[in-house]
């Protein structure tokens, strides 16, 4: 019950932030020097009347605040407007492209968590020993290397040089096998998905892995020094159990927060990694929309990504509250 109340409270709290995102996005897209009308005409010969017509059709003749209200009214009904370039509803375009991006980001997180947590624990447990130094160096490389460059290097080594993995594209596991060339069964489809996903996943996940590993190590060191660990030792609890249970559980709590907050870097990284690997996700859609000055589409994507991030943070906050018994579901901060 308490948790439900907290969830509702957090969702309500997000409303002003989401409105704020829409205002910022709307202002940036509409105050800019780029003129959507001339864009739509694409340098063709045009008359004053044509311009008027287009302005009227897209509501560009109305004052800014009115346009904002109209836009928001549409948003509430799930109408993100029409893309100028693609001449299709923005919502449809995003719906098509969000799948690959989610697949990429989630698998990158899975990769990061699966590698970072054990490495962080080992580093903390063998503090200042070779294993610790190695994992700290790996983490340092991870936070210092651009994801898109990791992608390039991975392509050069594993796709170009060794030819083990494809260098671009993605096979969507939710499609039917017949839609992909050279594939006839589901196992094959999933296998191909994995093969395509592996390199971009590592490229995007490395930064997350490094960040999570650093936090994990610090938290485990702190947790292992806790009085409750001393107590468990004094009561004869085996070292393995202490590491896996007593020290571990306390140390994981901050990881939840980090995962949520890092989502914004992961989304930014997805834009770059999708570009490097030619994956048709939201990131590519965004880059193309920017290149084509498709301001309706840019607004839609920006709002959607902001929304995803805010929701991600809320979900992690709620999981934190669910996992940590100490959290008081207070009405104030």
């Amino acid at each position: 019950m308490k948790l439900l109340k907290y969830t509702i409270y957090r969702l309500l709290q997000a409303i002003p932030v989401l409105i704020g995102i829409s205002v910022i996005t709307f202002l940036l897209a509409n105050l800019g020097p780029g003129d959507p009308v001339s864009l739509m005409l694409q340098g063709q010969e045009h008359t004053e009347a044509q311009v008027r017509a287009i302005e009227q059709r897209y509501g560009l003749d109305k004052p800014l605040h009115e346009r904002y209200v109209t836009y928001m009214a549409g948003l509430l009904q799930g109408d993100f407007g029409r893309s100028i370039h693609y001449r299709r509803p923005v919502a449809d375009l995003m719906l098509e492209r969000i799948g690959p991006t989610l697949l990429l980001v989630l698998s990158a997180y899975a990769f990061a968590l699966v590698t970072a947590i054990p490495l962080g624990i080992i580093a903390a447990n063998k503090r200042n020993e070779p294993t610790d130094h190695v994992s700290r160096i790996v983490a340092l490389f991870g936070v210092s290397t651009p994801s898109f460059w990791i992608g390039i290097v991975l392509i050069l080594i594993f796709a170009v040089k060794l030819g083990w993995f494809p260098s671009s594209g993605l096979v969507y596991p939710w499609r039917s096998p017949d839609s992909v060339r050279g594939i006839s069964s589901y196992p094959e489809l999933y296998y191909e998905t994995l093969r395509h996903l592996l390199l971009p996943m590592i490229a995007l996940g490395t930064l997350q892995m490094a960040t999570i590993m650093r936090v994990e190590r610090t938290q485990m060191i702190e947790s292992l020094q806790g009085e409750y660990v001393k107590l468990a030792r004094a009561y004869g609890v085996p070292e393995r159990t202490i590491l896996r249970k007593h020290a571990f559980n306390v140390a994981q709590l901050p990881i939840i927060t980090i995962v949520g907050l890092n989502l914004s870097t992961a989304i930014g990284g997805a834009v770059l990694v999708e570009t490097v690997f030619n994956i048709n996700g939201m990131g590519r859609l965004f880059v193309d929309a920017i290149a084509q000055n498709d301001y309706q589409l840019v607004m839609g994507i920006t709002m959607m990504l902001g929304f995803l991030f805010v929701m991600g943070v809320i979900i992690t906050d709620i999981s934190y509250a669910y996992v940590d018994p100490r959290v008081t579901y207070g009405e104030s901060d």
Partner: protein
Amino acid sequence: MAVGESQIESGSESVAEDDDVEARVGWRYTVAQVKRDTTARWGLYIVSFVLFVAVYALIDSNLSRLTFGHVSNYRFAQLLPIFDHPTHIPPPGEGRAHVPPYFPLAEQSWNPLPAGGTLEHPLGTDRAGRDYFTRIVYGTQVSVFVGLISAFIGLLGGTLIGATAGYYGGRIDDVLMRAVETVYSIPPLILIIVFTVFVGGANIWYAVLGVGITFVPVFARIIRSRVLSIREMDYIEAARAAGVRDRNIILRHVIPNSFAPVLVYATLQIGVTILIVAGLSFLGYGAQPPTPDWGAMLRTAHGYMHSNVWLSIWPGIAIMITIMGFNLFGDGLQDALDPRIND
């Protein structure tokens, strides 16, 4: 004994200016810790090296065998002494080109010299025949200045907003912090691209400003919480009781006292800045060719990554080393200020 000495030293300083004693002792302690801490020391070495290269490239315009030919597109270069060095461009397929690092050539069909090919071009040349090593060296300038400036913008904006929010409290605090939270909620790369393209057009200065803006929220939060906690401290209470105005308290006590942790954070942010700007340039929204920016170089090289592998490697290594330096240094500073974890 050592304790006694440092007490005497700080005592003699405190005669000069009473207010800053706390801050200065903190600095002294920090410097001593940095000297001891291996991580911080290595970070300092790398950062110093990178800064040295950046400044060196600024001063020594005759850096490589190559000098400036056409620099009008590149603003930094306008500050520099210009040597008129003839550019030698042989017909395609015949001989090597000698082209300055800024030479705004379209990518040509020259076969770039492979890495380590000659003493003259240790990293070879790019497809336009420009010496790659020189371009990498000049890239240091761009990255370092871009990193420093945008971290500074974030720091400045964050300090202003955070201090104002913490100082006035109430509704102003609410509004400012909500605004800050909103900016924080849009993934930085997305926000910066939208800002750069729609407000300024693809241009490195707007990119720098954009990156700076996305850092305002974190700094604002740190400063605000410091202001709130320091406000409650005894000596601030005493100053307030003595009739010192809040504004002066904030400027003379609170901000100087929050500076060390914020600076540590700023150091770590420089690395992130360089990372983001590299990404921006890679997408084509940061530094524009022919600027020798690492991200932009990777963008160009990406087109030839199968045939000219090394062109895609060197700039990445440069980015990695630079960011690593700032990260190591920042980590070391952090440990120095909070020695709890890495004792």
